[in-house]
């Protein structure tokens, strides 16, 4: 794959896990829709699974013009080789100009395999995508309407914009939770193209002996308010204060990596680059210093309250309200104020 195909579609590779459509697929459709509209091309989704009809319709309702829906009983549970073979085959046949995957464990396993097979570039873990021009410094050549693949790098200390000027398709994985989820429009119509993938028994190299999915106990992405605690909370006992404030507000409890690593709260509650990315109406950060990895996961919150004993904590750089003080005193004051006013 080398020649850019300017008429090519924008593709979203949808993900389903044991029959459930992953939220990130719908989030990608909202960004994919913008990109396709900017370029004046179609937005298509690729969906593979044991059953595809119902989810294919959902993908249409969330913005896809077309769905390439490959059905095979053996595709109910993800494994690398057959999925990569089918997606790479479709890319070579239809020549989309942009292909985006969710940066989930599955997407990050699949996308590089596909990119290597079609010899295309791939950018990992993007937090934004856009269309724009580019002048290549070495050749001074100008390229129009390329995909800007925007991602944090170097432990989150820099933001890089990556382009693929000449060798297409332009491929990227996109982090969960950073794009808005579009609303479903039941009236939307699209073309669902069902097909049976050409797969042999030898394509299923792996035998999945056993698998278990833990149900996430919390859904931070859906929470309107998140009260999160970090290392500064000081201990598991004291983490009670975080829960108390969360309960007073009807909020979800979140945590920094330090609090999770210390065993004060379950990993499902982790916010940040290696946890969940959230954009709630209110984020209250308690005893969280605000390492860049954490800020990357919460700085899009509409309002941020930071409570920290250290006035130099970087969390204050993204805060709207900052309280420098002892959380053991401040949190009861907040709970008190909330109870009196609400």
């Amino acid at each position, binding site marked *: 794959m080398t020649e850019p195909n300017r008429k090519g579609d924008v593709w979203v590779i949808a993900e389903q896990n044991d029959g459930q459509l992953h939220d990130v697929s719908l989030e990608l459709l909202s960004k994919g829709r913008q990109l396709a509209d900017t370029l004046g091309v179609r937005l298509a989704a690729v969906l593979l699974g044991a059953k595809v009809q119902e989810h294919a319709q959902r993908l249409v309702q969330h913005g896809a013009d077309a769905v390439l829906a490959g059905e095979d009983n053996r595709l109910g549970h993800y494994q690398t080789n057959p999925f990569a073979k089918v997606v790479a085959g479709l890319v070579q046949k239809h020549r989309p100009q942009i292909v985006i995957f969710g940066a989930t464990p599955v997407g990050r396993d699949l996308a590089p395999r596909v990119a*290597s097979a079609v010899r295309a570039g791939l950018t990992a873990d993007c937090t934004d995508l856009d269309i724009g021009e580019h002048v290549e410094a070495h050749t001074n050549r100008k390229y129009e309407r390329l995909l800007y693949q925007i991602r944090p790098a170097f432990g989150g200390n*820099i933001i890089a914009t990556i382009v693929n000027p000449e060798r297409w398709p332009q491929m990227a994985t996109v982090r969960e939770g950073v794009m808005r989820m579009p609303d479903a429009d039941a009236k939307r119509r699209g073309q669902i193209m069902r097909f049976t993938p050409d797969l042999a028994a030898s394509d299923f190299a792996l035998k999945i002996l056993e698998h278990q999915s833990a149900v996430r106990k919390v859904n931070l992405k859906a929470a309107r308010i998140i009260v999160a605690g970090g290392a500064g909370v000081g201990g598991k006992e004291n983490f009670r204060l975080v829960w108390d404030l969360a309960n007073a507000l009807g909020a979800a409890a979140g945590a920094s990596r330090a609090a999770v690593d210390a065993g004060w709260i379950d990993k499902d509650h982790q916010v940040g680059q290696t946890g969940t990315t959230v954009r709630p109406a*209110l984020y209250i950060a308690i005893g969280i210093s605000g390492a860049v990895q954490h800020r990357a996961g919460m700085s899009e919150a509409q309002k941020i309250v930071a409570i920290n004993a250290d006035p130099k904590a970087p969390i204050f*750089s993204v805060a709207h309200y900052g309280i420098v*003080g002892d959380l053991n005193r401040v949190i009861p004051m907040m709970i008190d104020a909330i109870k009196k006013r609400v």
Partner: protein
Amino acid sequence: MPYNLVVLVKQVPDTKRITGDAMRDDGTVNRGALPAIFNPEDLYALELALELRERYGGRVTVITMGPPQACQVLRDSLERGADDVVLITDRRAAASDTLATSYILSCAVRKVGQEAPVDLVLCGRQAIDGDTAQVPPQTAEKLGLPQVTYVESVEEIAGGRLRAKRNTGRGWERVEAPMPCLLTVTDQGPEPRPASAKRIMAIKRARSRAELQGEVAAAMPGATPEAVAAEVEKRAAALAARGLLIPQWTLDDIRADLQWCGRDGSPTKVKRIQSVILKGSGFKKVEPTKEAVADMVHELIEDHTIG
């Protein structure tokens, strides 16, 4: 049955210790200002390889690609127990993106496999400088090997098949993969052993030719290139006699097609780098008093953030 195990490792800047000094004014990173370390998850891949060798026998070969100073991770690997190490170093490999890097590494694994077929390739899940996790699956694809990513443990190898437990993010999976295959290992794998003190003493003098070149040139200022080359050869021969010369391969040695290497072989280009700028718009300072906290809560209720 003994296995031929290859581990791919990377030397990375310690991004956890980044400070303002490491960022240049133009927003690019001054890698020289950061300590260079063994990529953390690659240590887990090495440990898993060493444990498999202890269980089943075989050899552990560690490969890294990078500038001469990347030899430090190879010495580190030898000190922890690796049998063989190889440095891939070549100016034409500079500016390789993940696709080009995986191509070069796949050529190197193929070359190792010419002596004895490779049974297993192990990699860390991802490197902390880029966090992409792309190179291992791309390398597996180029070698035509099945991949098992996010491995936490290998239960057994038997009958040409390997059983591993992997983390799926939502839970776990036990899988059986045919050999040869490629694994990526997470930091939930077996805890890396420290280097053995005895081996450190033996190995600290190990050098590659590229390192010797730098050392000799610095030690003999004003010497002719011929004199420097002669001294490098002399030192290399002395090290080789004691088994301390770290092998070094160029792109020609691994028969890499240059069109897939370096800048030319890399479809992705960096358009722009910005250092992360703090919002700095200033926040409203709330005193830790009952009244001030109550006022803030009131404001949040007023603007419908709460309630």
